[in-house]
């Protein structure tokens, strides 16, 4: 049950661990082929494993257990496929076990501390920057529960590469760093990447003309009207759009937000200085122009005449107050990972000083700019989210729906691709926690659009002319975690051998009905500049 | 026409072990106002026979043959509503376990009033007053407050009286009392019996008293029917039965009663136990326990005959009948017991005890 479970992020900045994988689509990405690591070793997978067993003094068959959480049927199935492959070699005696998400999450987060003899299957979704994928999974500072480095993999060179990738702001040099990092990871195989996912939306063709699916979870409903992304939903003026939310909105205040749903509910309300469009390109939003003065200084030119929903007018002070509001809050790292201070030059001009050179700055700087009233404590954004976006918060019936209304004072004047004001006047987000009920609701015409419907239901509805499906390669990867702290998994040959036994094609084709793509490396193909198509281990 | 005529009543029970004939071809009559006793060991079929009078034998039992005529109409064939009107109104039963026979969740008064209302005898305030009067009538002190007591608040004796009051509430023509004195102590027993006698005469109610206790029978009955293994073995006016028991089983029962007023501990006098109900003994059912049994007893079943003439008994006649080969002359050695009458108290309470005069005579101790 449930939608996405786990904890997450503002799009583009955080890594999310997910209980129930989002449903993906057709493979867009080429990716690396199975032969890639032939030169790593001339031997086959069983020989690799045997060699590892000898080196660690472990006798075959080695008994272990592979886990999945019960809520995620697809994950359970691919875990069982892996179990089957391993048992076929005769070198392992693998059990399969399902746990409820709550216990499963605890198992994963504490597996290294408890030295669990367990292989776990998971997926994460990240943002527009490669750092979000590699940092949380592989950096030694992010050993669970301070991150998702579940098996406490520790490798100095890996840490170094991750750190330098973060600290490098030159795109080309960054691409090189991440290539080297991924090659290193492919040799060491602390975890095996199995598949990259997709995001899907299904909608009623009579209610919605054409939907554009944002690749990252959380910003789905930006597509209703987004000047920065050059997208908007055509409809009669004053129309109501009814869409789904997979769970209740836990907290709409950006500094306390800790789930995707809150993000989905609030993206049309808030705007930041910059935004990342549907293709991953950074675009101006509340800033009209920006430039990097030196590695740790950026100058921003603000848009004039931007009104907040509460009547305030945007100034450089708002930007500074917004950043500084993050100090000491649960979402502190969103900003204080890089932020030093803001120098206000005048009403519409400011300089942001970073405490260090920061690669993902441009995709990180776009946090929601909020009114001064919120920074001063006069306005509680948990109760009344207020920003500068094209929609303002209207009402929330806890557990039932979340409603936004067009904000008539929005700054955008229209251009050739997006009109001056959004045709859709009201966005009602109905909270429908059950995927099957979401399907029922869209069939009954109570939803115009639904996200995260099961792969089978999507395939089924797709054949009916009344429904349209929109897909996008997503920033999500499925992976298998080895208990690398435990013999024989301490041995890289063993992990490599297993990695080569994983039936990735079968998993994508059979388990995920062709949705998504086989993957070997942690940075998904969505991030074109950083994903690797092929690996050359000799480099 | 007698008030009640029972003819060839046969009741079977279907148990897991087999079919049990609890009552086998029972016939008798009760006249209006008469006090009639049915005596036997437990399991002899007397309670089942009583229930049959109101067609109250429930599953797994079934009345398979016979008629029960009350004022000439067959109770077993009455339409439901008429049967209901007969029950409690014309014929009432006082059950053996008085606590169990009262619904635990209603007060005593409610249950009496309810009965009267069901037969439109009285309702409302009148019913309440009559109920309290009845409770007084059956000798319950403080009837007013007992009226609102719940069954579990009553002692056994009081509960038994309440049950009698319930039974009498619609002034029935026939009151069936099933072991009314079981479990009561001697004084209360005596009081109750006295009460019954008195009530029977003042209400002009016929009574069928079902008991295993011949002592009780001696107290207050006109005629007695002795049952053994579902059959009638002897039927006689009470005096005759006591002075001249015609069946060895009756004689055995008589031997086992201590005199009233003496130590009431039951004394085993009949060897062996009741017959196996599923496979009753062949011939005379009493033969395995009978001290006078001969070969014929095990092979041929004695008919119920007049002890004087040896001719087949007729339920309509009030004479002395018994089912023993002795009375048809088929017994070679005869029955070797005698009755000694002891009259040792000023009010001439009858006591009977056998005297072992014959060489084969049984020992009652």
């Amino acid at each position, binding site marked *: *049950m449930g939608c996405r479970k786990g904890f997450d992020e503002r799009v583009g900045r955080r890594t999310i*661990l997910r209980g129930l994988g989002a449903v993906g689509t057709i493979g867009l990405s080429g990716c690396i082929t199975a032969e890639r690591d032939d030169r790593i070793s001339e031997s086959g997978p069983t020989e690799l494993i045997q060699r590892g067993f000898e080196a660690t003094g472990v006798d075959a068959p080695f008994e272990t257990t592979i886990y999945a959480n019960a809520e995620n049927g697809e994950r359970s199935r691919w875990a069982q496929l892996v179990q089957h492959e391993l048992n076929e070699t005769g070198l392992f005696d693998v059990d399969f076990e399902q746990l409820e*998400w*709550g216990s499963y999450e*605890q198992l994963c*987060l*504490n597996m290294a501390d408890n030295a669990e003899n367990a292989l776990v299957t998971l997926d994460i979704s990240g943002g527009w920057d490669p750092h979000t994928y590699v940092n949380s999974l592989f950096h030694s*500072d*992010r050993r669970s*529960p*301070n*991150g998702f480095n579940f098996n406490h993999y520790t490798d100095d060179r890996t840490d170094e590469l991750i750190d330098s990738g973060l600290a490098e702001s030159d795109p080309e040099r960054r691409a090189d760093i991440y290539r080297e990092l991924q090659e290193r990871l492919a040799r060491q195989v602390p975890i095996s990447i199995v598949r990259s996912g997709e995001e899907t939306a299904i909608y009623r063709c009579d209610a919605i003309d054409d939907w554009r699916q944002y690749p990252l979870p959380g910003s789905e409903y930006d597509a209703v009207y987004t000047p920065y992304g050059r997208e908007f939903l055509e409809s009669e003026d004053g129309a109501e759009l009814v869409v789904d939310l997979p*769970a*209740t909105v*836990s*907290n709409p*205040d950006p500094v306390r937000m*800790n789930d995707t749903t809150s993000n989905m509910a609030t993206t049309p309300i808030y705007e930041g200085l910059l935004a990342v469009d549907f293709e991953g390109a950074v675009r101006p939003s509340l800033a009209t122009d920006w430039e990097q003065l030196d590695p740790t200084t950026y100058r921003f030119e603000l848009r004039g005449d931007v009104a907040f929903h509460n009547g305030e007018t945007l100034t450089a002070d708002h930007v500074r107050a917004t950043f500084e509001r993050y100090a*000491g*809050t649960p979402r*502190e*790292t969103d900003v*204080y990972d890089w932020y030093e201070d803001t120098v206000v030059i005048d009403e519409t001009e400011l300089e942001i000083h970073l405490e260090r050179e920061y690669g993902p700055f441009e995709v990180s700087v776009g946090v929601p700019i909020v009114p001064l009233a919120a920074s001063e404590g006069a306005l509680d954004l948990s*109760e009344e989210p207020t920003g500068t976006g094209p929609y303002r918060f209207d009402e929330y*019936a*806890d*557990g*039932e*729906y979340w409603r936004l209304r067009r904000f008539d004072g929005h700054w955008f004047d229209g251009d050739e691709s997006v009109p001056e004001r959004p045709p859709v006047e009201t966005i009602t987000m109905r*909270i*429908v*926690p*059950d995927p*099957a*009920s979401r399907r*029922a*609701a869209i*069939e*009954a015409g*109570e939803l115009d659009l639904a996200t995260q419907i099961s792969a089978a239901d999507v395939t089924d509805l797709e054949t009916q002319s009344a429904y349209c499906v929109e897909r996008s390669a997503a920033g999500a990867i499925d992976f298998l975690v080895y208990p690398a702290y435990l013999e024989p998994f301490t041995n890289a040959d063993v992990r490599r051998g297993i990695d080569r036994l994983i039936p990735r094609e079968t998993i994508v084709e059979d388990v995920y009905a062709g949705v998504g793509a086989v993957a070997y490396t942690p940075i998904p193909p969505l991030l074109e500049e950083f994903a690797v198509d092929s690996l050359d281990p000799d480099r | 026409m007698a008030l009640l005529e029972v003819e060839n009543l046969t009741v079977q029970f279907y148990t897991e072990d087999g079919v049990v004939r609890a009552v086998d071809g029972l016939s008798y009559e009760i006249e209006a106002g008469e006090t009639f006793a049915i005596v036997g060991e437990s399991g002899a079929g007397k309670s089942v026979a009583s*229930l049959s009078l109101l067609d*109250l034998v429930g599953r797994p039992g079934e009345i398979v043959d016979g008629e029960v005529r009350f004022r000439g109409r067959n109770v077993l064939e009455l339409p439901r509503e008429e049967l*209901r009107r*007969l029950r*409690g*109104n014309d014929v*009432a*039963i006082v*059950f053996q376990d008085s606590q*169990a*026979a*009262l*619904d635990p*969740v*209603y007060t005593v008064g409610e*249950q009496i009033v*309810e009965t009267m209302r*069901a037969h439109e005898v009285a309702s409302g305030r009148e019913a309440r007053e009559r109920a309290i009067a009845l409770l007084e009538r059956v000798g319950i002190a403080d009837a007013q407050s007992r009226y609102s007591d719940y069954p*579990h608040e009553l002692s056994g004796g009081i509960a038994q009286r309440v049950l009698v009051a*319930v039974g009498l509430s619609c002034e029935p023509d026939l009151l069936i009392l099933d072991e009314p004195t079981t479990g009561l102590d001697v004084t209360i027993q005596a009081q109750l019996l006295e009460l019954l006698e008195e009530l029977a005469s003042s209400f002009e109610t016929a009574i069928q008293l079902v008991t295993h206790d011949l002592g009780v029978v001696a107290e207050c009955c006109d005629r007695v029917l002795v049952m053994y293994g579902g059959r009638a073995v002897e039927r006689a006016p009470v005096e005759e039965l006591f002075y001249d028991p015609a069946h060895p089983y009756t004689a055995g029962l008589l031997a086992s009663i201590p005199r009233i007023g003496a130590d009431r501990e039951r004394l085993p006098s009949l060897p062996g136990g009741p017959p196996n109900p599923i496979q009753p003994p062949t011939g005379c059912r009493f033969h395995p326990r009978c001290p006078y049994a001969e070969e014929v007893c095990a092979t041929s079943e004695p008919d119920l005959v007049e002890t004087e003439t040896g001719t087949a008994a007729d339920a309509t006649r009030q004479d002395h009948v018994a089912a023993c080969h002795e009375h048809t002359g088929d017994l070679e050695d005869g029955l070797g017991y005698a009755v000694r009458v002891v009259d040792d108290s000023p009010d001439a309470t009858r006591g009977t005890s056998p005297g072992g005069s014959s060489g084969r005579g049984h020992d009652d101790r």
Partner: protein
Amino acid sequence: MSIIRYTLRRALTAVPVLLGATAITFSFVYLTPGDPVDVLVGFDHVDPETRAALRAEYNLDRPLWQQYLLWLGDVVTFEFGESPITGRDVGETVASRLPHTVALGVASWTLSLAIGVPLGILAAIKQGQPADEASRIAALVGIATPNFWLGLVLLFVFAVHLGWVRVTPPDAPLVSLEMAWFVILPTVTLATALAAIVTRLMRSSMRRELDREYVRAARARGLRERTVILKHVLRNASTAVVTVAGLQIAFLVDGAVVVEHVFSWPGMGQLLVESIGRRDVSVVQASVLLIAVATVAANLLVDVAYAIIDPRIRHDR
């Protein structure tokens, strides 16, 4: 002893039980693995100072017994404060969900009794006959049908294909015709298994009572069969059903989690599941406490109902 005195006495004995329940609730939630602050910060690598400040903000830095006493103070004053996760008032959050669960629970409870009791009586008096067999099969199917599956089937048949009702709750007040109409399907879903249990229980306790001597005695008194069954047997048999009807509250909470999920019903079940998922300790504690109170209250009601039905109980002790 009068019913009122009996009730008061039972209510007094419930106080220590409730106190125990608060302690268990409190420690249970705290013993559950997972640090709320980890969740709050999204398992991020945060500044230790910030972490400590967050702990202090929600008293997580104090010893457990202090936290418990502080919380007990909140409970007694009905001031649960703000949830660290949602920033909304915990009391208000629970209060906004409670009526939905109560409405669904009461409706299902009533429906299950309305179906189960007569069906059980019918089966008992028609023992071995087709009506009994039919009710037995119906009850078996009812018990065996998973709520989740039944809910979805009803949803697809009546909401999607026939279009008689909505899939999601209408934008209407809880007490309104539209809402009443909507709540039919979840009620039926939740009531099915309950009704099946009640039917079987009613049947067996009726059968047991029917064999009692007072039933034969009542018939011997010439009471109408209807009176015998409905006035005497039913009242005696109902104690067992009252017990179960009272214990069903726990069953209802359990079933509500699933049914509320399928029917997008904003009740306590959903709140509990969400809050556990978010480690929203304050909301989980308040909800669990509320369920505990409801269970204790239901037990009290059961006992009182028992005493009303059966005088032996209130005369005891």
